[in-house]
């Protein structure tokens, strides 16, 4: 098991190196030049000389591959993602500070998705073709069909018209006021979570229907077990194996979703950092965020693979 995890972690290295090349190049393909931006922002006369000076100061006068190797060298040797072109703050520091917030938002969304999807999917399967099943399935389709940004916009707009209430736009960190902080995170997490719950609920329902028809479920009934034990002990675990795959596949989408939610609800996570960095063409921040997201996605995949081992005794990692 330990050896397996170490091998898997080592296998991440080439994937991440490849990712870093792609990220490094594509970021520089974004139209608009950071130096033009700087010159306009600071109202410096765009003389040829000032331009060359800034290029040299930022290291953009070197060929692209030299820039890349400098950057990746620092990443690999010191874990240093460079410095922001505008604020000269270390990117590692910026990203790490924001990562916690995004991670929290994603985790809350995932928990909400599971709390909604697993019981609803199991219930729908047990009461197949009843009113409860139809309501559950309709809810899932609805959540899937309505885009998150629309839900978020509606929540921003209508309560303020009707009740004079709107979600706070001033972010409260957890350490200042935990309850208030969680309250702020709850709405965006619920929007992301319900969208994610739709696919998971459908998958849970399908798999439960499949599992409930298995011979070993009949054996469980024949032993005299009640419905609760049949479902919780005998059916759910078998049904969850494919559901975990679906959850793993949705994780990258969830990260994409947090970018939008952070923007709408003004939550200072990685998404907001990324959006600001893109509009300012702050290359080191963009590459830094992408690299961290890449690591996160790969780690989630590893976790999904490991969880098969927990659910299915036939899977043993060695």
């Amino acid at each position: 098991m330990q050896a397996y995890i170490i091998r898997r972690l080592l296998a991440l290295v080439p994937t991440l190196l490849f990712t870093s090349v792609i990220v490094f190049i594509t970021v520089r393909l974004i139209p608009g030049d950071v130096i033009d931006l700087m010159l306009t922002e600071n109202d410096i006369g765009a003389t040829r000389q000032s331009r060359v000076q800034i290029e040299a100061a930022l290291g953009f006068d070197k060929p692209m591959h030299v820039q890349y190797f400098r950057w990746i060298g620092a990443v690999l040797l010191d874990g240093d993602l460079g410095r922001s072109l505008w604020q000269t703050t270390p990117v590692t520091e910026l990203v790490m500070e924001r990562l916690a917030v995004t991670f929290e938002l994603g985790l809350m969304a995932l928990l909400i998705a599971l709390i909604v999807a697993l019981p609803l999917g199991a219930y729908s399967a047990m009461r197949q073709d009843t009113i409860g099943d139809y309501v559950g399935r309709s809810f899932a389709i609805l959540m899937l069909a309505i885009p998150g940004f629309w839900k978020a916009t509606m929540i921003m707009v209508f309560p303020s018209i009707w009740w004079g209430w709107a979600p706070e736009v001033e972010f409260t960190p957890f350490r200042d006021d935990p309850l208030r902080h969680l309250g702020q995170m709850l709405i965006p997490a619920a929007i992301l979570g319900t969208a994610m719950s739709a696919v998971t609920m459908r998958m849970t329902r399908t798999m439960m229907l499949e599992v409930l028809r298995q011979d070993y479920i009949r054996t469980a009934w024949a032993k005299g077990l009640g419905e609760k034990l049949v479902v919780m002990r005998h059916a759910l675990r078998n049904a969850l194996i494919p559901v975990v795959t679906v959850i793993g596949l949705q994780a990258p989408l969830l990260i994409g979703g947090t970018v939008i939610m952070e923007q709408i609800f003004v939550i200072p996570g990685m998404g907001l950092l990324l959006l600001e960095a893109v509009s300012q063409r702050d290359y080191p921040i963009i590459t830094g965020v992408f690299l961290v997201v890449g690591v996160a996605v790969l780690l989630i995949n590893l976790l999904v693979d490991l969880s098969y081992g927990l659910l299915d005794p036939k899977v043993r990692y060695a």
Partner: protein
Amino acid sequence: MAGSMTSPLLQVRGLTVQFRTDRGFVNAVDSVSLNVDAGETLAVVGESGSGKSVTALSLLRLVPSPQGRIVAGEVIFDGQDLLTLDDRQMRAVRGNRIAMIFQEPMSSLNPTLTMGLQVAEPFSIHDGTPWAAALGKAKTLLDRVRIPDSGARLAAYPHQFSGGMRQRVMIAMALACRPRMIIADEPTTALDVTVQAQILDLLKELTQETRSALILITHDLGVVARYADRVCVMYAGRIVETGTARDIYERASHPYTRALMASIPRLDRDTATRLEPIEGYPPSLAQLPPGCAFHPRCRFAADPCGRRVPMLEKIGERHHRACFVDAAV
């Protein structure tokens, strides 16, 4: 064997089970009546589709719903009609007073739970035994069904067992609460021939030890001869003949039973005589012929056979058959 004066352990009266199909409802089991005495072994014999498995499942009310449903009849077990019990009362019967063993040992055990948990589970649900003690009892049970190294096997999963071993585990599970009756639905069909006899011997031996009645659902007449006290022969959802194993083997009277007997290969017969297959195919339950369901395939079919359904009639002390044709043919 209990005398005919005391009431039998199980009395099934007019059991009828319908299934929904594309062509409407069909009677998978039609007015089946049978008795099982305490400690007795009853074999229910028939081809696939004859309704023998559905009969077995109905006794524990495990017919897959909503497509199947019990529409009529009584299942009186130990003086109680099981069909009138509520869910909680029925659960107290299942696995406790009546246990069931299924055909497919490969798929009848839960792949994600340890053998120990699965065997110990009946103790936990029915007797409220704490898990540690229940696992100890499970180990004793595994010893009784002769699973070697039973202590270590408690932590193993079904995929680490062979088919024969899994069926032993199923038997252990069924025996757990010392049921008054065990229903075994084709318990050896999925197993190697060499293992079949071992499993049946074990089942017979252990049910004798616990004085449990055994209903053995099978299509194998060889099994019937060796293990059964009495036999019910089913065809197209109805019982066509019933009697002691001796009645059926030596004095088979229904043309279907006789044809079934003639179609089994026997080592003590002249190898030159050909086996006699039964002409035609079993009928589809959705399109049963009128009258006796067997008459289109019956060599002795006569006038009333295509018009009226024959009822079971007594032709010996415990021997009944449902046929219009003269028994002497």
